[in-house]
């Protein structure tokens, strides 16, 4: 019997048996057809054939069973911007896209820069959420880039990282202090790299398309100058820094070199930076407006190379829901960002795996174990004793993106009408089926 899992909000099954899965986990070198038995939310057996009469059985039908996908960079918009998205709809979109954990950025209203807001988000997620929600706290009070926020207090309440995402920490000394101070609490600092002094009111990547459309250009150095700065600070202080939404060839090169030198730098990119170029802006399509902006062919190729050679650790969505009235505007006035939770897995399969650039297992690593490892979540792998966050998907299923069918409140995606490969069908969070569609 097919149940409406969004109504039930998770079916609590003491014992869950997943049959006939193609179990893939690069971390534990698993690539086998078989079964997984879950007891009280924990994986207790992985074998070719498990029989258990007491367990509720889910037939994976030969589909891939992966560790639950983790998106370490989303905007859930609650509190403050519930007309765009809230924790309920955002996490519904997440589980529909195969995600079992999301990390939400602090640019809410009020800003998540104190214990109370962290606590609010955690309790809302507990009450209405469909997956794990890990808040990211602000680096600075009010995202103003001036005074450090109470990172220790926020950590006690559940933040897993700090970031001023949406805005850079323009003052280098403040960023240096942030790396030093956050390290005491073992909190990674996620840096939104954007050098405002170079931005010059730009609204799209500096390119032929930009010149043709008569829009103001954003040069790649806007991102790269700050990537370089943060690498140099991290190197000197021997602290970690995580670079958010890497989009340019130059950033990939800077991070690759830094990693070779032993700098504790990690980074992420989003599917739109390896599946679209700035030509998508043609026709003044505001669903192709984001920050950092879509780049050129060389950048797309460099991003894919960076993912392949390990320079780029994680694939994130930067899920940025906006109301239609905030996008259906003159290009200059439209807000930046696109929703991504319900297309991320398919875009990664279509543009990285089906093109032969990396194996499915390698790709999954960047959406499971790697982000978990960067944030110390203790998730993202399939192993005995591991928490049973699992995603079951068909990597070969061809489907057409229809934004009106998104669970997300917002429909701002440039991929409407795209035909992609790979679809999540069952999402299990701690042994509970949170999505089955």
């Amino acid at each position, binding site marked *: 019997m097919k149940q409406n899992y969004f109504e039930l909000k998770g079916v609590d099954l003491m014992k869950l048996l997943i049959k006939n899965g193609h179990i893939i986990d690069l971390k534990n070198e698993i690539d086998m057809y078989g079964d997984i038995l879950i007891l009280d939310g924990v994986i207790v057996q992985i074998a070719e054939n498990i029989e258990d009469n007491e367990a509720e059985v889910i037939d994976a039908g030969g589909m891939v069973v992966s560790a639950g996908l983790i998106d370490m960079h989303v905007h859930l918009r609650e509190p403050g911007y519930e007309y765009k998205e809230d924790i309920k709809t955002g996490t519904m979109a997440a589980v529909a896209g195969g995600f079992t954990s999301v990390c939400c950025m602090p640019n809410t209203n009020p800003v998540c820069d104190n214990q109370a807001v962290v606590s609010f988000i955690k309790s809302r997620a507990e009450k209405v959420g469909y997956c794990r929600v890990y808040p990211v706290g602000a680096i600075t009070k009010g995202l103003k880039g001036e005074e450090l926020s109470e990172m220790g207090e926020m950590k006690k309440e559940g933040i897993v990282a700090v970031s001023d995402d949406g805005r850079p920490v323009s003052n280098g000394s403040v960023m240096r202090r942030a790396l030093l101070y956050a390290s005491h609490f073992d909190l990674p600092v996620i840096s939104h790299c954007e050098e405002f002094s170079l931005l*010059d*009111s730009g609204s799209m990547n*500096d*390119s*032929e398309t*930009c*010149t*043709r*459309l*008569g*829009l*103001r*250009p954003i040069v790649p150095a806007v991102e790269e100058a700050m990537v370089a700065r943060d690498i140099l600070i991290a190197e000197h202080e021997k602290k970690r820094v995580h670079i958010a939404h890497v989009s340019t060839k130059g950033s990939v090169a800077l991070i690759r070199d830094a990693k070779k030198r032993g700098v504790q730098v990690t980074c992420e990119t989003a599917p739109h930076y390896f599946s679209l170029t700035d030509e998508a802006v043609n*026709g*003044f399509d505001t669903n192709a407006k984001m920050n950092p902006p879509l780049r050129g062919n060389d950048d797309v190729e460099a991003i894919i190379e960076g993912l392949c050679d390990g320079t780029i650790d994680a694939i994130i969505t930067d899920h940025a829901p906006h109301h239609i*009235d905030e996008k*259906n*505007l*003159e*290009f*200059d*006035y439209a807000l930046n960002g696109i929703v991504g939770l319900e297309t991320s897995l398919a875009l990664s399969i279509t543009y990285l795996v089906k093109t032969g650039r990396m194996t499915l297992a390698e790709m999954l690593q960047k959406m499971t174990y790697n982000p978990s490892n960067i944030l110390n979540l203790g998730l993202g792998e399939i192993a005995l004793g591991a928490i049973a966050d699992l995603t079951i998907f068909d990597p070969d299923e061809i489907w057409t993106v229809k934004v009106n069918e998104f669970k997300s409140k917002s429909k701002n995606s440039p991929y409407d009408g795209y035909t992609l490969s790979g679809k999540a069908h069952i999402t299990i969070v701690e042994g509970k089926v949170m999505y089955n569609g």
Partner: protein
Amino acid sequence: MLSGRKDLLGIQELSREDILYILDKATEMKKVVLSDNKKIPNMQGKSLITLFYENSTRTRTSFELASKYMGASSANIAASGSSIQKGESLIDTGKTLDSMGTDVIVIRHSASGAPHLLAKNVKASVVNAGDGMNEHPTQALLDMFTIREKKGSFEGLKVAIIGDVTHSRVARSDTYALTKLGAQVFIAGPPTLLPLDFEKLGNVTICESVEEAICDADVIINLRIQLERMKSALFPTVREYSEFFGMSLDKMKFAKDDVLIMHPGPVNRGIEISSYVADCENSVINEQVTNGVSVRMAVLDILCNE
């Protein structure tokens, strides 16, 4: 014509034949403009609204006169003094005008792509009268009309476009039109005012100096320094700009003797062009304005009747 389009948003989407068709029609219209009885019935019973989010003298007036010479009812909306100041969105403003039975909306806007957004959301024909740094199609058409009138044809013509190319929608539209019609475009200006890959927009050569660009030129189009669009200092002083990039009688000597001096107006005298050049025999700056009315009549006639 116009390949069956509802709107005129840019030169980019027009074919060579579309452009020549408009120019031919404008030739007929010019006779009306120069006659004693400036009235033809081609827009009788039609309505036109000029929706200007930026200041304008010649473009707005010339659209208004063009429509009146053809018997249309017209009205003007300026951003100040309208509901735009109350925060009404462009789409809502457009739909309001649509609901009043407007046939043509002529829009000028500081944001590139605004006319395209409007066109998608209204039934009325939309004419782009300049959007941000993107296009100014009727300016390009009147420039082409003027060049053809004086030079006969475009094949092999050497046209120099000088000055602030980055902020210029005229430079873009002229470049598209000149390329489609077979002319060669030579560009010069301070590197801070030249956008990336401009040479890919058409048959364009980027030159090291103004002198190189205008060497043996048949036409020089001087661009206005758009101080209102510059958000930071892109050259040190007006004085230095006029010395190196402004058009002077001395520089003009590099061009052909019968070079046409053009400027889309309004002229910053003594900055991008000296008064001696602007007012010399080779200057057709005022004829451009006359031709603007004819060309706009042609465009409106085609949009309303074909």
